[in-house]
């Protein structure tokens, strides 16, 4: 009995270990030649096509909500002219990477997990291994790289659209002045904010793709197994992404001093 309890308690540790080992396999596959350029481009295009519009649509209300919340608060302090800088700070530092990660995990990750899961249960992956081809090098590496690339660019998109959305709401709804919004851009925000947003996006793309590929390639038990794999991959990558986001933000704040004056 105790051994059953112990094995249940330790099961998540085993899964985490396998996920990590899978990540290492992918890292090794990264350097195997020939690089699958075609698959990489196809996947990058596919991921971009399923994420760009939802990301833009998510980014607009994200920027607007920050403008509304911060705008109201900041008005009470009489510091309306800083609304622009607050929006930039919030969007570039946090909202951008978070919105990107949600879309990458939710749209791209689920599509990848479903695709690989379906291949797994149709024995396509087995067939590939039997034909002497390593599916990690052939299928997973291009997907992981494509996810990272698209996440990187999506982050830029979210930043632009989010700041623009904040601008519209601030100027149109909150009677802010366009000049003040634009002029305060650089009051608090600095260039390293942008870098850390980009690094976050890359790391989130990496994590989401690896979780999705791992879950997809380990789907078992017929069509229901594919559904389960997709579901688990989205849940696990969401949780991981939020934890990693917190850790990276904490480290960033320690490393980079806030801009003063």
């Amino acid at each position, binding site marked *: 009995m105790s051994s059953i309890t112990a094995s249940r308690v330790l099961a998540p540790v085993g899964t985490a270990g396998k996920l990590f080992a899978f990540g290492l396999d992918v890292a090794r596959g990264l350097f195997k030649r020939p690089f699958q350029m075609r698959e990489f481009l196809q996947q990058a295009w596919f991921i971009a096509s399923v994420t760009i519009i939802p990301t833009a649509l998510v980014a607009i209300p994200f920027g607007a909500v920050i403008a509304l919340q911060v705008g109201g608060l900041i008005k009470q302090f009489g510091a309306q002219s800083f609304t622009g800088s607050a929006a930039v700070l919030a969007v570039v530092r946090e909202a951008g990477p978070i919105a990107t990660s949600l879309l990458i995990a939710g749209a791209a990750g689920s599509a990848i997990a479903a695709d690989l899961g*379906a291949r797994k249960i149709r024995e396509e992956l087995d067939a590939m291994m039997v*034909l*002497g081809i390593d599916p990690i090098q052939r299928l997973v590496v291009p997907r992981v790289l494509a996810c990272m690339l698209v996440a990187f660019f999506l982050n830029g998109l979210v930043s632009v659209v989010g700041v623009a959305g904040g601008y519209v709401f601030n100027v149109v709804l909150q009677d802010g002045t366009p000049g003040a919004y634009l002029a305060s851009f650089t009051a608090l925000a600095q260039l390293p904010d942008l870098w850390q947003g980009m690094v976050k996006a890359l790391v989130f793309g990496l994590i989401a793709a690896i979780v999705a590929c791992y879950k997809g390639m380990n789907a078992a038990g017929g069509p229901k197994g594919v559904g389960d794999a997709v579901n688990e991959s989205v849940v696990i990558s969401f949780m991981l992404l939020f934890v990693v986001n917190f850790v990276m933000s904490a480290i960033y704040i320690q490393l980079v001093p806030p801009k003063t004056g």
Partner: protein
Amino acid sequence: MGVEIKVDNLSKSFGKQLIWGDVSLTIPAGEVSVMLGPSGTGKSVFLKALIGLLKPDTGSILIEGTDIASCSEKDLYAIRKLFGVLFQDGAMFGSMNLFDNVAFPLREHTKKTESQIRDVVMEKMDLVGLIGAEDKLPGEISGGMRKRAGLARALVLDPEILLIDEPDSGLDPVRTSFINQLFIDLNAQIDATFLIVTHDINTARTVPDNIGLLYHKHLAMFGPREMLLSSEEPVVRQFLNAQTVGPIGMSEEKDADELEAEKDLDMPPLPPIPLQLEPSNGIPRRSQREPGGWCRDNGVTPPPGSFDHKMSMTTGG
């Protein structure tokens, strides 16, 4: 000229459940062997262990001096180039059309030009009767066609060993006969070692040189076709003649009560042994044996009416 597969003391379990244990057999080079077993006895697992997709818990699988069960991943990928595998559903790549599917191993592993690839692919497509369907996607064709396309893909690299998982599931009797004839003709042509996993009795009785039977977590028997078809061993006899009387029950094994109830029932007499399928061009295969040869050599009297040219292929019972 085919390659021998030597399996020694192999066992595999999933968690605490033993799938099969202590399986030892040698699949002779260049011959056609069939692995039989009731549903759920791990026939497909056995096949996957042979290609190294599943690691067995103990034992070894020797192919050309390499142990599949313990060799490195690199050696495994190298040795797999000797294999052609036909999966149950064909396992075609859903995103490629049939031509690209069949051409895939050639593009990956050879330096052939596109026109050479085209020649080889068309030759194999012709062999399995799929000329004209090469632009179709796997999702657009029937299960039988997918299976034949899978066979074409398994054949393009001229394998030394051909592993075939349930060639007859989902095929009509006529197509099954055609595909069985195709296996025999292929064996005559390329001399590869064939291992067919099935539970179709007709295939098992007429196609192979050797038969193996997996039952109740172990290998019940493996040997020449005539040895198993004339065997008095209850499990072998029941299975190869598709009878209800015998140790195999609906759920794996019969319990004591059921066995007690049929204690007095005699097993029906063994049906005659049919002739083995011969290559359609009439030239005997290298591994072909003379009908009744094994029975005569081992002093076994085959059931009356065996090896009769006019005999139909029906099973007894």
